[in-house]
C-alpha cells in the first residue's frame, strides 16, 4: 500500500438513462490498482462489474467521481495526448475467445499489428522475434502457432493469443473480463496461472473480473464483492474469501459447488427465501462502511441478517 496507485477509482458512480428510466449501474465504487498486484471484482451478472471495466477502458465516462491514472484524472480532461498514453497503458482481455480474434488473419498478424503500431519493434525481423517471444510467454510454440488462423486453435489457445495480444502493447494495466468463463473447467486453472504469473513477472496492475469467487484468490491479492452496483465487501483475498462477513459474500461462498454437500433431500424453499432476503437487503443504497480488519471492509446491512 506504500507505492502510489497506478489507477484509482474514487467514488465512481454511473447512471444510464434519464427521468423515470434511470438505472444506477454503479454507486460509490472506489479501489486502487497497484503494479504487480491484482484485484478481483466478483459478483453476479448485472452487478456492475463490466461497467467498471468499460469505465477503466475509457469506453464510458463516469457520472460521478473520478478515475485517476498516476494521479491525473482521465475522465475527459486529459487532452488527446494524455488519452492516447492512457489507452496504451490499459489493455483488455475479453470473455469470448471466439469473437475477439479476426477470423481472416493469422495469429502472427494479430500480434505484429500492436507491436508495430506502438513502435515496440522496428524491422520485419525484430517484429517477428517479438511475436515469437510473446507466443512463447503464453505457452504456445511460435513455429506452429504463428501461421495458424483463429479457427485452427482451441478456446484455451485462443485465449492465450488474446493475452499475448494485450501484452504486445506493453500495457501497465490489464483488465481481464471473465477471461475463463467460456473455457472448459479443465483449462481454466492454466489460464489463471498464466495471468497470475504474467502479472507478477511484468509488474502489471490487473483487474480480474469474474462471477466465480472460487477463482478470485487464484489470481488476485485483493477481492471486491459487488452487488447491485455497490461494493458490499472488499479487502485482502484471504480475509474476504476466508472470513467473509457480509451476508451476500457468505451466500456467494455457500453456493460455490461443493462435492461434499448433496442437494437432494434438502428442500429448496429455505435457501431461496434466504437468498431473496439477502439480495433485497444488499440492494438498498448505503453509505455506512465498517472496517473489519487492516484491509477488510464491508457495507453495513440490517443487523438481523448478520447471523
Amino acid at each position, binding site marked *: 500500500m506504500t507505492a502510489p496507485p497506478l489507477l484509482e477509482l474514487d467514488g465512481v458512480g454511473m447512471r444510464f438513462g434519464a427521468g423515470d428510466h434511470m438505472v444506477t449501474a454503479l454507486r460509490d465504487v472506489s479501489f486502487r490498482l497497484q503494479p504487480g498486484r491484482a484485484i478481483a471484482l466478483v*459478483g*453476479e*451478472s*448485472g452487478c456492475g462489474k463490466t461497467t467498471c471495466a468499460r469505465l477503466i477502458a475509457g469506453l464510458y465516462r463516469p457520472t460521478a467521481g473520478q478515475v485517476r491514472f498516476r494521479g491525473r484524472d482521465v475522465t475527459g480532461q486529459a487532452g488527446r495526448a494524455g488519452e492516447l498514453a492512457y489507452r496504451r497503458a490499459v489493455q483488455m482481455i475479453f470473455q469470448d475467445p471466439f469473437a475477439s480474434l479476426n477470423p481472416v488473419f493469422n495469429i502472427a498478424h494479430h500480434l505484429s499489428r500492436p507491436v508495430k503500431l506502438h513502435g515496440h519493434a522496428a524491422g520485419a525481423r525484430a517484429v517477428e522475434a517479438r511475436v515469437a517471444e510473446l*507466443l*512463447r510467454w503464453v*505457452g*504456445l*510454440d*511460435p513455429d506452429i502457432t504463428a501461421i495458424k488462423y483463429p479457427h485452427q486453435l482451441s*478456446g484455451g489457445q485462443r485465449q492465450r493469443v488474446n493475452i499475448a495480444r494485450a501484452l504486445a502493447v506493453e500495457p501497465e494495466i490489464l483488465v481481464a473480463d471473465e477471461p475463463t468463463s467460456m473455457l*472448459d*473447467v*479443465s*483449462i*481454466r*486453472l*492454466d489460464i*489463471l*496461472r*498464466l495471468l*497470475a*504469473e504474467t*502479472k*507478477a513477472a511484468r509488474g502489471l496492475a490487473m483487474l480480474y473480473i469474474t*462471477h*466465480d*469467487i*472460487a*477463482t478470485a*484468490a*487464484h*489470481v*488476485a*491479492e485483493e477481492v471486491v464483492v459487488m452487488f447491485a452496483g455497490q461494493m458490499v465487501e472488499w479487502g*485482502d*483475498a*484471504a480475509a474476504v*474469501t*476466508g472470513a467473509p462477513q457480509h451476508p451476500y459474500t457468505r*451466500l*456467494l*461462498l455457500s*453456493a*460455490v*459447488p*461443493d*462435492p*461434499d*454437500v*448433496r*442437494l*437432494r*433431500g*434438502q*428442500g*429448496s424453499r429455505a*435457501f*431461496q427465501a434466504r*437468498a431473496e432476503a439477502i439480495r433485497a437487503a444488499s440492494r438498498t443504497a448505503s453509505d455506512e462502511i465498517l472496517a473489519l480488519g487492516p484491509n477488510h471492509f464491508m457495507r453495513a446491512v440490517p443487523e438481523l441478517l448478520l447471523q
Partner: protein
Amino acid sequence: MSEPLLQVRDLVIEYLLDQGSFVAVDRVSFEIGRGEIFGLAGESGCGKSTIAYAITRLPRPPAWIRQGEIRFDGTDLMTLDEPALRRLRWRRIGMVFQSAMNSLNPLLRIERQFFDVLHRHTGCSRAEGRAKAEAMLRLVGIDPRRVGDYPHQFSGGMRQRLVIAICLALEPDLIIMDEPTTALDVVVQREILQQICELQERLGFSVLFITHDLHLMSQFCDRIAVMLTGRIVEQGPVDQITRAPLHDYTRRLWEAIPRLPAAAGVGTEAVRERMPS
C-alpha cells in the same frame, strides 16, 4: 418397474466429413433408472451433447447414429418413425439446453408459450393452458400473476426456470439437461438445482444431467459417467467418482477445477512448463 427407464447400448455416433468420418461417440453404454439423476461429465468436444441429441433422435447432420440401441421404457427409439417420435419428445422426454433461456420466443407472452406446447401435446383449451401455466410458475417459484409478461421482463435465472417449467408442464419421465445453469451465477444456479431436486422428489422423473463441472455434478447426481474423447472412461455411484476415482482422467478432471483456496497466489505454487526457446 425394475427395468431402467433408459438403456443406451453400444452407441456409436459419427460425424461425416468430406473424407471419411469422425467418431464422436464410441461404443457408449449406460442406463438411467426411474427417478434417478444421472450425470454425464467431460470436456467440451467429448461427445456428451451429441448423446443428448441422439436420445431424442435429433442428431443434426452430418452426425448420424451408426450403431447401437436406445431403449426408452421398453421401446427401441431407433425403430420409431417421425410421428411416434414427435409424440415422445417433450411429452415423455423433456429437454433443457444451456442457452435455454434464449429459446423463449421474445414476441410471445409466457402464457402463450406454455399454451403452444400444451395444446400441441394435450389439445388443452386456452383456459386450461393458462391455469396450468400459473400452476407451473408457482412450482418454480415465480409469481403466477406474471404469466402475461414477455421473456425480456424476466432475469436470466427466471427465464431458465421458465423453460424448466414449460418442460415440466407435460410431466415427462425423463428430462435431459445440457449445461442448464452454466450461464448463471452460483447463487441462482444453486436455487434452480435445489428446486429441480425438490420437484424430482415430488414428481419422480429421471434426469440426464450434462456438465463439465464435476463439483456441481457430485452435488446433484446419484450416478456419474465420465467421458473422454467419445468414450465413457469411468462410471459409478457419486461417492466412487468423488472419493475414489479409478481412472486417471477423472483424477485429472478433479485437480483441474479451481477450488477455493485459503490463501492467494497460485503463481508461486507451480511453475508452468515453458515452450523451448
